[in-house]
């Protein structure tokens, strides 16, 4: 089991690294997709079937395509003329390391509070559904409202562009 875990983590980390290290932006987007896939496999490895498949469907099927469309419709698809790395690469690295340290500390702290592995609950799709419309109905509705607002906003922005011409 742990061999597979190390393999999937290697793929995820590799994908994420290449997403920032490659020159061609579309290559970066595809490497990001590999990272998403790795994440999905990690979810599946933890028996969270719904989360894993939803990750594939939403991230790879929609978000990755959105990212790629955005790259293509702007000029990000041209290979950059100068260097890819900014001048502030080192300070950026330091900031990223700091954030990672804080998050890692938070996760490790909370791991002591959670029960052991043997008792991790298996949340089936039905339990998730019941929870969503039962206990968590208010966040669900707020997210739905947010999505509606975003869709309407996108339509209005596109409409304005047409009329602006």
């Amino acid at each position, binding site marked *: 089991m742990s061999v597979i875990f190390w393999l999937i983590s290697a793929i995820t980390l590799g994908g994420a690294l290449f997403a920032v290290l490659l020159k061609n932006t*579309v290559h970066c987007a595809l490497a990001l997709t590999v990272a998403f896939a790795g994440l999905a496999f990690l979810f599946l490895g933890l028996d969270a*079937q*719904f989360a894993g498949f939803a990750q594939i469907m939403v991230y790879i*099927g929609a978000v990755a*395509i959105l990212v790629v469309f955005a790259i293509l419709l702007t000029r990000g698809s041209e290979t950059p003329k100068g260097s890819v790395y900014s001048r502030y690469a080192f300070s950026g690295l330091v900031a990223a390391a700091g954030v990672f340290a804080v998050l890692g500390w938070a996760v490790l702290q909370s791991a002591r509070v959670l029960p052991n592995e043997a008792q991790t609950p298996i949340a*089936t799709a*039905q339990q998730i559904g019941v929870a969503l419309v039962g206990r968590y109905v208010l966040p669900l509705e707020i997210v739905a409202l947010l999505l509606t607002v975003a869709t309407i906003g996108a339509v209005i922005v596109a409409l304005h562009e047409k009329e602006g011409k």
Partner: protein
Amino acid sequence: MFQTFDQIFILLRDWVLGFLPVGLRPGAGVVLGVVAIVCVFPALFALTVLLERKGLGRMQNRPGPNRVGPFGLLQPIADAIKSLTKEDIVPTTANGFIHFLAPLVLVVAVFMGFAVLPMGRNMVLVDMDCALLFYFAMGASSELAVFMAGWSSRNKYSLLGAMRAVAQMISYEVILLLSGLAVVMITGSLSLTRIVEAQNQYTGIFPHWNIFTPWGLAGFLMYAIAATAETNRSPFDLPEGESELVAGYHTEYSGFKFALFFLGEYLAMFSISGLGSTLFLGGWSAPFSFLQWVPSWIWFFSKLMLSIFVFIWMRGTLPRLRQDQLMNFAWKFVLPFTLYNLMVTALWRFLGEGWQRWVVCTVLVVAGYVLLGRVSMRREHFGPRSYRYAE
């Protein structure tokens, strides 16, 4: 005896596994199932390619290919030899790595979808609780492959074709999901085996297939439309229309890679038909209760081939839809109707057993269809033409 015939593949597999040590058996069982799928469906693909050409020919008052073997039966072999021996041309400025990966990603994503289809009693490769979700996740991955193919070819037409294909596939994916959702609502489970078992009951001689309910019929229609659009089949084949975009996103592919795209498209057709028959047509269950002696996998594959025939029939009949007509149709008619159908399904569930729910739901579905059709698919009516002649 019929029971044996029905379970013959399971018994065969168990007999082969009997030769192996106990530790290896689960893994070997899965491998055997994978080998079976990888052998059966490409063989079915070869047959379908021939049947499509012959079927289209007959619909167009001509025979299809009939020179290569008796009735052209060896034509797929000739096609296979041709595609294997053609030169593999990759454009110099194309992105070689992604150009190579795109057909592979497509074929892998499509093959994965077969893992959850119940092809007979006890004949699922992987029996998951979230099987339907898995299937749609794999369908979403195949869109990425289409985009990769179009972009890596360094060709304006390929890119255009790929963008159109992805836009079309995303729009119709939502509809596919929502029409499948009605079935999940009634059955109460995402597992495909449970869905088939729920349809495997009979009142008198008639089965409880979902298509025989008003919401099921409407859902099946919308599912069929969405399935045709997802697999880029006529009349939704603008991304690969030969007269519009040369060959769309697979223009720059030749030889075996093109054959892989072709294979991917037809396999996607098979798996989406398989899912459609599982969700709406009762999967492996027999159409009448007295026909249950026929093996279940024969019913599954007959329904599959019937769906393929309907695909071919539609291809031979309908002209191609333009991109904007396609998108209009999806967002203005099919999606609202699918949402409305979802509400009617909920009403069906809550009206309880009896004849009332049949009448109410049928009336609602038909009225909704007709009204929505008139409102959203309104065509501009041009008045009488006026001519101005040059003096």
